[in-house]
């Protein structure tokens, strides 16, 4: 990747140092040890099952349905949600987990039995994949990390994991493997921080998604469904 330009930096930063009454600092600044670690005590000793309970409760507040299932019933659970929404056009990530969880080879029967068309995000088709996502009425992704406290699925973008899949369709399903559950945002951001520290390249887009889009801009009345999905369902699946 070609390095980008940086313009007007030195004078700008010199002025900051000047006003702070010291010389420029260009290296050697370390974060101090913060005087408390209060974020780490939230849901600290919760087991995975307890975290699912917390997640389920939180889903009530964020206008999101939660379905619990196991691997053998996952296919049916997803189909039921889609049918409940009258969905016909589905777009999914190109994510190996669709195969691991035994879904990919079911898509044909979705079509034959229920008339549901499934398109997989296909980076090689370029703009066409965005157009397909725009036309779809259901978007499905897996959750990469799931935050129990806030009811949030964390999605890391990459070639097969387009940003549009969880954004453009009017309804959205997140498949939540139970093993992805953590107490709160702190665990997810620490993981990303550790990746940065070890020199790993982080995704160009990390989305923390908490239910469907909403707005209270008209007389402070909450309206669910603005630019992103209008409805959302999390399907929690036992994976170990």
């Amino acid at each position, binding site marked *: *990747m*070609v*390095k*980008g*330009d*940086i*313009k*007007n*930096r030195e004078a*700008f*930063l*010199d*002025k*900051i140092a000047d*006003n*702070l009454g010291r010389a420029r*600092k*260009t290296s050697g*600044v370390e*974060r101090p040890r*913060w*005087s408390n670690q209060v*974020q780490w*005590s*939230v849901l600290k000793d919760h087991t995975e099952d307890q975290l699912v309970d917390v997640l389920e409760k*939180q889903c009530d507040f*964020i206008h999101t349905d939660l379905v619990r299932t196991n691997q053998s019933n996952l296919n049916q659970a997803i189909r039921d949600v889609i049918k409940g929404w009258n969905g016909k056009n589905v777009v999914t990530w190109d994510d190996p987990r669709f195969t691991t969880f035994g879904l990919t080879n079911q898509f044909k029967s979705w079509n034959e039995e229920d008339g549901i068309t499934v398109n997989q995000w296909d*980076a090689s088709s370029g*703009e066409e*994949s*965005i157009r397909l996502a725009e036309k779809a009425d259901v978007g499905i992704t897996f959750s990469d990390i799931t935050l129990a*406290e*806030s009811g949030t699925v964390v999605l890391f*973008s990459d*070639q097969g994991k*387009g*940003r549009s899949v969880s*954004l453009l369709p009017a309804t959205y399903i997140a498949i939540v493997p139970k093993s992805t559950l953590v107490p709160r945002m*702190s665990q997810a951001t620490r993981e990303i*921080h550790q990746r*940065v*520290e070890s020199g790993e390249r982080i*995704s*160009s*887009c*990390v*989305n923390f*998604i*908490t239910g469907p889009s*909403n*707005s*209270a*801009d*008209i*007389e*402070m009345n909450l*309206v669910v469904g*603005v*630019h*992103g999905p209008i409805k959302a369902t999390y399907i929690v699946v036992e994976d170990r």
Partner: protein
Amino acid sequence: MPMHIGEKEFTNRVDKGLGDDFMRGAVRSAQGRLQSNRAGAAEELGDWDQWRDLGQEIRSHTMENLDFYLQQLSEKVAERGGHVYFAETADDANQYVSEVIAKKNAKKIAKSKSMVTEEIALNDILEENGCEVVETDLGEYILQIDDNDPPSHIVAPALHKNKEQIRDVFKEKLGYTNTEKPEELTLFAREQLRKEFLSADVGITGCNFAVAESGSFALVTNEGNARMVSTLPKTQITVMGMERIVPTWEELDVLVSLLTRAAVGQKLTSYVTALTGPKDEDEVDGPEEFHLVIVDNGRSKMLGSEFQEALHCIRCAACINVCPVYRHVGGHAYGSIYPGPIGAVITPLLGGYDDYKELPYASSLCGACTEVCPVKIPLHEQLITHRRNIVEEEKKSGLAERLVMQGFSRVTRSSKLFNVATKMAPFLVTPFVEDGSIVKGPGPIKPWTNIRDLPVPQKERFRDWFKTREKGGTGHGQG
């Protein structure tokens, strides 16, 4: 004055606000709701005060080392192929953005809500250059469609409009034919704006927090428009105030948690989107080209000054939601895009005392703002410091504080509801009363009572006190 909105005269703006019953009702109920949401969320989180301490500590460390963290941020953005422009003034920022847009030959720009681009009046410049600029945040969109009516609240910019007014605006400008139901209005806006997202050449966003260690930046939203703006257009420009930065992702967690709770009482908003550079080469959606514009525009003056802590602000609007004076006069009365207590602190710093010297007086000094601020900015003390500075600066003219006080006393005189505004003060100061005057105040009120004894609002209303002060006679001792 880019930051300026509405009528030039503070008192005219205030009179207008006081005359608008819907606006005041809306402000009151919004304040009430946001405030109780915030209180609920804070309580549920537990240890709220420790969270605030942590927030304050992080902000303070970051400001003390701002040059270092901005340098790190710019390096990391560039490593990921993004371009960084440091803009000392509003003009510099606007010019750079204009150049990028001209180079792209872009005609349509989709924007998501951003206070800093309002501050530098970026839209005006882009429109002068012949671009079509679409505000995509629902509240901002409504305002824009209504011939650029200015925003009145940081979190809920169209707070002063009711749904019938919005329906009429949509009908008149866009041929809307449905009812005033918020759901129908919203669905209509969704359809209108979807077309705009898909056809926009450039997306412009603000930035809630940049993350120095990785060159990332986070957008905290509910509607999803910021995701659209950063997913569909081929070029993305992000404009950030230079203070909106954290060292690492771990601090991002703490500040986002404080922001969403303090702003709207949510554990997290629907979307927290953290972007790093342009899209990867093998990805399809996301911008091919990314520019980060870091804006000073007067902020560096606050560094090293008695107002440095004002830069800790994370724009949650909690101080606005508890402010009795804001409740009373509404956002437009402040004449600045930054209203409420924080607006009264930073607007005179960014725009100068000449134009904004009344603002530090638009406060009843009840201390509620300081109490709720998630990063513990001593808003109160800062307002008092402003007042002292203004008095100092104007002493020579002889008119001094009197003129300014007079300006504000007109507000208080003309207001039937000022009783409400002072409601909180008795609660806070009663234990310190002797013979009807406050002899020493707790916390925030103290510096003020060092100058003069305050009357007890319960017994003698604030505006009566002002009235008698103006005439020159009062039993409360003038400082």
